[in-house]
């Protein structure tokens, strides 16, 4: 059951290789595969409602020795969100990406990326987590260079080097941790850290984990690779990256904070808050000074990661629920804004705000599709971004963390400013030398993909009254890691 979200993309890869020369089959198969992943995620969620945790041992080896797969509400919510975004992304890519790239394995790499993401969300073993991260990162290496344009190659060198340094630090941390505690199972590590005094080297290992995932999640001061590399591949790929890569990095931070770092809150809380505040500020200021839609949105990815980190640092039911809601909201809204930006590019032939204009006049539906996720990023009700920010700010004031909360409020206003900038420049401004539309007709798949993800954004905001219970339940589970430990290691005290 728990292996389905990993098996489905892996089997799809094999089938996609078999149908290498037939693009139509590849497209169809990819859509079927992501829908199957959605069903698998829903099935896991339904099983979960009974006991809260679902545990599976790979190969039947008992817990601390074999590789364990664990699903709790946090991982299943993200699993569900990833598969929903993947449906939109695959459909959008069919309409957006050129045939050369599609034929050269675009869909295959999407499935590889999804296998890595799903694996990283479900695994309960740190070395296995490393393997899934590599699966994900290697697929993304190829995706970011796919097409081999000069700019892409240049950007991918930075992307590659930063991610590899992150991976190596991660492995080094695993080695250190293993030498001190003699186990790789996440629940077992957490249990041992609670039963005995923590050896000092374990703290170094956890700091290395923080840096490694800081690089992957693009937090201050390790975020420079992201705005340098994300804008270069076709925007359909960037949209998918924005929904998966950094979010999985931040998910692992959430999980590790809950299991390992919360033992030493007095040290970690100020560190997390400082990093979160600086990430928010730097991301949003750099976004405010850019004029390329892709760059603005990439910098906003960085800035929004800061909010999620803030939720991790708050570590209360409301704060964590806000952080998880914020991850999901970001997956939907960010992908949707990227997609709408891509449609503008298709119609107008440019991402540069100075050259764009009058989209509201020529394509009102597109302006509307951009407006919803943009308002969500800025945090205007009734979009999910508003509820995410509301929960975070509520938890911040509630816990009397004034500085970080006020920083979050100011950054929120600046985010609104840069969304309004895109709106004013691209939608309302009269075009200088009116070119009209470069292309008259865009493939319906690109529109369909955008509409799917925008609808998801809107639905998440409108149904928050029902879905909040799930987010709160996920937060409660994270707050009490003994439940996680007990689910994986039933015989332990």
């Amino acid at each position, binding site marked *: 059951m728990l292996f389905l979200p990993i098996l489905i993309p892996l089997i799809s890869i094999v089938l996609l290789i078999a149908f290498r020369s037939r693009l139509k089959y590849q497209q169809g198969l990819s859509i079927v595969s992501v829908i199957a992943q959605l069903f698998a995620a829903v099935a896991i969620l339904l099983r979960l409602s009974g006991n809260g945790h679902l545990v599976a041992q790979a190969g039947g080896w008992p817990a601390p020795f074999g590789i364990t797969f664990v699903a709790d509400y946090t991982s299943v919510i993200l699993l569900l969100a990833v598969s929903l975004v993947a449906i939109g992304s695959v459909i959008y890519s069919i309409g957006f990406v050129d045939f050369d790239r599609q034929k050269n394995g675009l869909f295959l790499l999407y499935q590889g990326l999804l296998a890595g993401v799903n694996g990283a969300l479900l695994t309960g073993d740190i070395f296995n987590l490393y*393997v899934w991260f590599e699966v994900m990162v*290697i697929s993304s290496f190829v995706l970011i260079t796919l097409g081999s344009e000069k700019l892409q190659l240049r950007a991918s060198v930075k992307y590659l080097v930063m991610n590899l340094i992150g991976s190596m630090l991660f492995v*080094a941390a695993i*080695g250190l941790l293993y*030498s001190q505690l003699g186990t*790789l199972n996440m629940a077992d590590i957490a249990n041992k850290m609670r039963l005995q005094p923590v050896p000092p080297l374990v703290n170094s290992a956890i700091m290395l984990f923080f840096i490694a995932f800081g690089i992957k999640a693009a937090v201050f001061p390790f975020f420079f690779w992201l705005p340098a590399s994300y804008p270069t591949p076709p925007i359909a790929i960037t949209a998918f990256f924005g929904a998966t890569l950094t979010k999985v990095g931040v998910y692992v931070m959430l999980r590790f904070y809950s299991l390992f770092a919360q033992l030493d809150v007095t040290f970690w809380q100020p560190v997390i808050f400082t990093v979160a505040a600086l990430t928010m500020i730097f991301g949003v200021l750099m976004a405010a000074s850019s004029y390329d839609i892709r760059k603005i949105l990439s910098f906003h990815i960085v800035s929004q990661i800061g909010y999620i980190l803030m939720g991790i640092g708050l570590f209360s039911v409301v704060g964590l629920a806000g952080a998880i809601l914020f991850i999901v909201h970001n997956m939907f809204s960010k992908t949707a804004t990227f997609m709408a930006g891509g449609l503008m590019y298709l119609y107008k032939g440019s991402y540069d705000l100075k050259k764009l204009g009058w989209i509201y006049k020529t394509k009102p539906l597109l302006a509307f599709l951009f407006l919803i996720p943009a308002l969500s990023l800025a945090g205007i009700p009734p979009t999910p971004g508003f509820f995410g920010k509301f929960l975070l700010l509520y938890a911040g004031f509630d816990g009397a963390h004034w500085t970080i909360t006020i920083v979050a409020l100011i950054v929120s206003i600046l985010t609104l400013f840069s969304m309004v900038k895109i709106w004013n420049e691209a939608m309302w401004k009269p075009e200088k030398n009116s070119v009209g539309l470069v292309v008259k007709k865009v493939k319906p798949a690109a529109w369909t993909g955008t509409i799917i993800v925008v609808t998801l954004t809107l639905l998440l905001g409108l149904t928050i009254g029902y879905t909040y219970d799930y987010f709160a339940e996920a937060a409660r589970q994270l707050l009490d890691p003994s439940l996680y430990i007990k689910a994986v290691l039933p015989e332990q005290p």
Partner: protein
Amino acid sequence: MSLLMAILIGFLYAVSIYLLLRRSIVKLVIGILFLSYATNLMLFFTGGLTETSPAFAEPISTSELATASDPLPQALILTALVIGFGVAAFSMVLIYRFYKESGTVDLDELSEIEKS
């Protein structure tokens, strides 16, 4: 022995960081290789491999098994090596394509070309 290994691993990390900070991307790739060597070596010695505890033991007696070092890190670096090998192959192809497209391996030179 373990002190010597610690110094060696530290030296390898220093070499890799020096190479990573160079302008040439060929040296960058060699730096990545050294980084993965240093990490793998470190992982290898977390198993407690010393002259008195062999890397593996035939399961003849429990006393012999007790002296053997932990075999798991060896399995771990095997995985890490294979992944590192794949990544190294990819990065070499990447810098080759990079050189073909831009005609230089110097990152500073490239940004100067782009500016002008």
